[in-house]
C-alpha cells in the first residue's frame, strides 16, 4: 500500500542521542486496509440480518466482531509502537550498483512483533517477525546513480498484523550514509608510462614475486622454497630465491585526462585505482585539491576511492 502524503505534513520518527530511532505514539499512521473495508461491509450485512430476524445472538456475534475490529486496530498500532531502528552498516559501492543498508530492528518488548515490513519509499519490502526482546538485521538495497555521499533515504516501517484489517505505517529518518564511489570508467589507453621506483636498498632478492635463482640449502629455509624437483633428480638440496621487492609505481593524475569532463575524469581515475590494485602496483593519486602519496595497501585503495567519491564536496 502506498500512500503519498504532502511532504510538509509528514510526521517523521528521528534518531535519539544513540543514533537509534524509536517509533513513538504520534508518528504512526493507521487506516483500514481493503480487507478492513470488506470486514466492515460484512459487519453491516450481519447487523441488518440480525435486526431483520430479531436475532439477539446474531447481534451479539456482530458486535463481538465489531469489538474485534476495534481491538485489532489497537494491536496493529501497538505492533509498531516502540519499535527501535538503527543503521548498523552501509556498504561502499560504485555508482550504478545497489547500495546495501543493514538496518537493525530492535524489539525491547516482552511480546513478539510479527510481520514488520520495512522498505524505502521506492524499493522492495521485507517482512520480518521479531522475537520478544531481541533484535535482527534487515538488509535493504537501493539503486545508486551518482557518486558521493548517499544518506540513508527515508524508511517506511509498516504492519498489518494481527488480522490484516488495518494498515499502520511510520516514516523513519535514520542517521548514516553510504559512500558511493565513481563508476569505473572504460579501460583507457595508457597515456602515461608507469614509472619504477627502485627499492632504496636495491633488489635484495628477498621478495616473493619473481624467481631469481637457486642457492644451496641452509638450515632454517622454508620447506616451501626448497627445489624438490632438483632433489628428486638427486642434484642436492637447493633453495629457490625470489626477488621483486622493487615495486612498480604509478601516479594517477587528474591532469592525465585533459579531454574529459569532471565526472568522466573521476571515473577514469577510479578505473586506474582498480587496475593498480589488481596489478598490485603501488600508486599515488593527484587531484587538484588533494595528493595521496604512493603506497600499496588496502588503506590506500580506500583513501583513494574515498577521495574520488567526495571530490568537490566540502570536506567534513
Amino acid at each position: 500500500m502506498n500512500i503519498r502524503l504532502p511532504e510538509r505534513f509528514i510526521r517523521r520518527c528521528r534518531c535519539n542521542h544513540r543514533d537509534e530511532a524509536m517509533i513513538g505514539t504520534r508518528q504512526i499512521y493507521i487506516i483500514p486496509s481493503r480487507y478492513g473495508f470488506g470486514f466492515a461491509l460484512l459487519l453491516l450485512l450481519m447487523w441488518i440480518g440480525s435486526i431483520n430476524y430479531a436475532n439477539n445472538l446474531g447481534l451479539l456475534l456482530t458486535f463481538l466482531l465489531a469489538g474485534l475490529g476495534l481491538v485489532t486496530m489497537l494491536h496493529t498500532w501497538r505492533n509498531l509502537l516502540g519499535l527501535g531502528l538503527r543503521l548498523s552498516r552501509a556498504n561502499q559501492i560504485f555508482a550504478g550498483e545497489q547500495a546495501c543498508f543493514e538496518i537493525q530492528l530492535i524489539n525491547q518488548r516482552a511480546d513478539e512483533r510479527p510481520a514488520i515490513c520495512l522498505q524505502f519509499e521506492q524499493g522492495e519490502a521485507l517482512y520480518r517477525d521479531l522475537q520478544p526482546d531481541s533484535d535482527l538485521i534487515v538488509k535493504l538495497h537501493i539503486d545508486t546513480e551518482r557518486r558521493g555521499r548517499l544518506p540513508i533515504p527515508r524508511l517506511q516501517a509498516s504492519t498489518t498484523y494481527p488480522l490484516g484489517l488495518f494498515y499502520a505505517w511510520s516514516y523513519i529518518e535514520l542517521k548514516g550514509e553510504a559512500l558511493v564511489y565513481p563508476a569505473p570508467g572504460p579501460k583507457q589507453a595508457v597515456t602515461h608510462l608507469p614509472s619504477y621506483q627502485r627499492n632504496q636498498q636495491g633488489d635484495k632478492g628477498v621478495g616473493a614475486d619473481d624467481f631469481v635463482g637457486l642457492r644451496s640449502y641452509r638450515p632454517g629455509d622454508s620447506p616451501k622454497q626448497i627445489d624438490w624437483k632438483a632433489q628428486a633428480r638427486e642434484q642436492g638440496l637447493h633453495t629457490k630465491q625470489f626477488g621483486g621487492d622493487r615495486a612498480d609505481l604509478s601516479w594517477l593524475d587528474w591532469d592525465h585526462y585533459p579531454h574529459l569532463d569532471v565526472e568522466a575524469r573521476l571515473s577514469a581515475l577510479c578505473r586506474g585505482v582498480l587496475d593498480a590494485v589488481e596489478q598490485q602496483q603501488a600508486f599515488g593519486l593527484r587531484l587538484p585539491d588533494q595528493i595521496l602519496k604512493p603506497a600499496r595497501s588496502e588503506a590506500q585503495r580506500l583513501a583513494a576511492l574515498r577521495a574520488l567519491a567526495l571530490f568537490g564536496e566540502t570536506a567534513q
Partner: protein
Amino acid sequence: MKHADNINTPLLYRLSFITALVVAPHFQRLDLSITLALLAVLTLRLTTLYFTRWKPGRLLLFFVTILCAVLIFSVYPLLMGLEAKVALLSLMLSLKLMECRTQRDLKIVVFLGYFTLITHFLFDQEMLLVGYIFLMVIALTSLLVESSRSSKATGWRFTSLRYSASLLLQAMPIMLVLFFLFPRISGPLWNLGVDNSTGRTGLSDSMTPGSISNLIRSRAVAFRVDFDQAAPPPRQRYWRGPVLWRTDGKRWTRAKFLQAAPVTYRSSAQPIRYQVTLEPSPNDWLYALDLPETLPPEATLLPDFQILAKEIRNQRYRYAATSRLAYHTGPLNQREQRLALQLPDNITTRMEELVRQWRLEASTDRDLVNRALRHFRTEPFYYTLTPPLLGDNPSDQFLFESRRGFCEHYATSFTTLMRIAGIPSRVVTGYQGGELNPIGNYLIVRQSDAHAWSEVWLEESGWTRVDPTAAVAPERIEQTFEFDLEENSGLGIPVIFSAGDYGLFKNLTRQFRLGVDAANASWHRWILGYSKEQQQKLMQQFGLENLSAMKLALGMILATALLIPILLYLLRLRGEVKPDPVVKDYQRFCKRLSRTGIKRFPHEGPKDFAQRVMRKRPDLKPSVNAITQHYIKLRYGRSDGTKLRQQFHRLVRQFRA
C-alpha cells in the same frame, strides 16, 4: 501488502478443518444430499491437499460447481426458505475453499465463515451452541493471525490460537457496550418469512383425555415469572390459559369470541404485578394469574379472561401483567349462559341420576358444588399419570368404572356434571404452581405443571374456580408437582407425592438444576430477550429515562471511547520489558557524556569507552573510573549486592560532565 501471497499447505489444512467445523452444525438441518455434497467437497479438498500431485484444476472446479448448483436447485427449486439459503451459503463456502490459494482467498473464506456462523443462530439459540460458535470465532480469527505473520508455520501453531482468544476476550467489553447501548430497531426490516413451525410442546386450544398427561412428562420450561412483590402461595398460582366451552362428549374446544371485552370484574384484593418470559410456542395466547387485570398493549382480553396476542408465535416473549387473586365477575349474558350449559349427546342416565341425587341433598348451587367435590373425595377416585384408556364416553366411564384419572378427567367430568345440574360451567386449562428458584428469585413454570380445572358461575360470586383435582389429590395443588416418573409409570398406579424430604443427592441435583435454570433465565432475559423495551428499562435503572436513539448512540460511542484507553493502558503495561536499573543508570551516565560530545559507539564495551573518555577528558578520570568499575562488577561480576547498586546509583547521580 503482497508478501508471500500464496498460503502454504499446513495453513490450508487448518483452514479446511476449521471450515468443516464451522459448517458442521448445519448438517443436521440440511437435506441429506446437501450434507453429503458438503462432505464430499471437503473430502476432495483434503485429498487434493494430501496428494499434492492432484492439483484441483479449473475444469474439475468448474465441474464440481455446476454439480453443486444443479443439486441445490433440485433440492430447493426456488431457493425459498432459510434452509435453502443456508445450504447455498455453506456450499459457496466449501467451493471457495477448494480454490483457496492466496491471502485474499483465505480472507474471503474466513469472512464467509463468520457469516456462516451467524446463520446457526437462526435455528438454535442454546447456550451450548453459543459456546461452540465462540470457539469457532477464535479458530477463524487465528487463521487471520497466522496468515498475516511473515514466517509461515510448518505445523499447527497454538500461539496464534491463544492470541486470537485474547483478542476476542479484549473485544468482549466493547461487545457488551454495543449490545446494550446500540439503538435498537424493533421489528423486521422486511419480511423474510421465517418458517419455524417445528413441533414444540405446550398446551393446545383443545383438550381430549390424555392431552395434558402427555405434557406432564416434559420438564421443558413453559415460562418464567418475576414477581414485583412476594409470590402468592402455591394454591393460588393458577396460570390461566385457553378456556374451553364446547364439548362433544370427548373433546373440549374454545368458543369463538370475536371482540375483546373491557375488564369487568370487581375486586378488593391488592393487584399483583409480575413479568412473564414465555418460551417459544406455536400458540398465540398468553398466561396470567387468575384473574388478569392489566396486560401488555399488544394483547387482547377475551370475555372469558383468556389473553390473546398476535405475532408472538415461536419467539421468546416477555410481558408485564397485573392480576387480582380475589374477584367477582358479575352477571352472565345470554350467549355465555347458553355456551356454559351446552351438553354433549352422550349423557348417560346414571350421570343424570347422580346429579339428581345431589340436587335433593343440596339447597343451593354452592352446596351442590361442594357435594360433588365431596363425592370425588370420599369415593375411591385415584389421581394417576397413566389412566386406563377410555372409550367413546370418557366422562361416564371415568366416573363410574375406572375412577382413575388425571386432572383433565376430573375437570371435564366435573364440568359435565355441573352442566347437567344446570349450573353454568366451563373448563380452564393452563398451569398450576411452579417452582420458586431462590437463586434468581423467580418462578419456573414447566410443561409438567400443566393443569385443567373448572369454573362454575354462582349467583353470589360470579365465575368461581373449582378444582376437583384438589379434592382428590390436594398435594398436587399445595406442593411443587415433582415426582419420580419411573416410580409412577405403572398403569393406573396412584401418584405418590414426595413431600419435599429429598435425599442428599436429589437435593444437590435439584440445587444444581436450579442454578443452571437461573443462568438460563438471565441468559434469556438479558441476551435472547433483550429488546427496545428492555433497553429503556435498563436505562431507567441508571436514571436515564426516554433516551432518544441519538442519545443512546452518543452514550455508546462515549462508553467505547472510555474502554479503549483502558485497554491501551493494559496493553502497554503488558508488553514493556522493565530495564535493569543498573543498565538504566549506566545509560544515563552515557547520555550525560554524549551531551559533551563523547558518544559511546554501539560496539564499544564499557572499558574501551572509559579509556576513550579518560583520554579526552582527564579531569573526569576518577569518577568515570569508579562508575565503570562499579558497572562491570554489577553487570558481569558475581556480586549483586543492593549496597553496591545504591552506591552505583549515587555515583551516576552525582556525575557531572
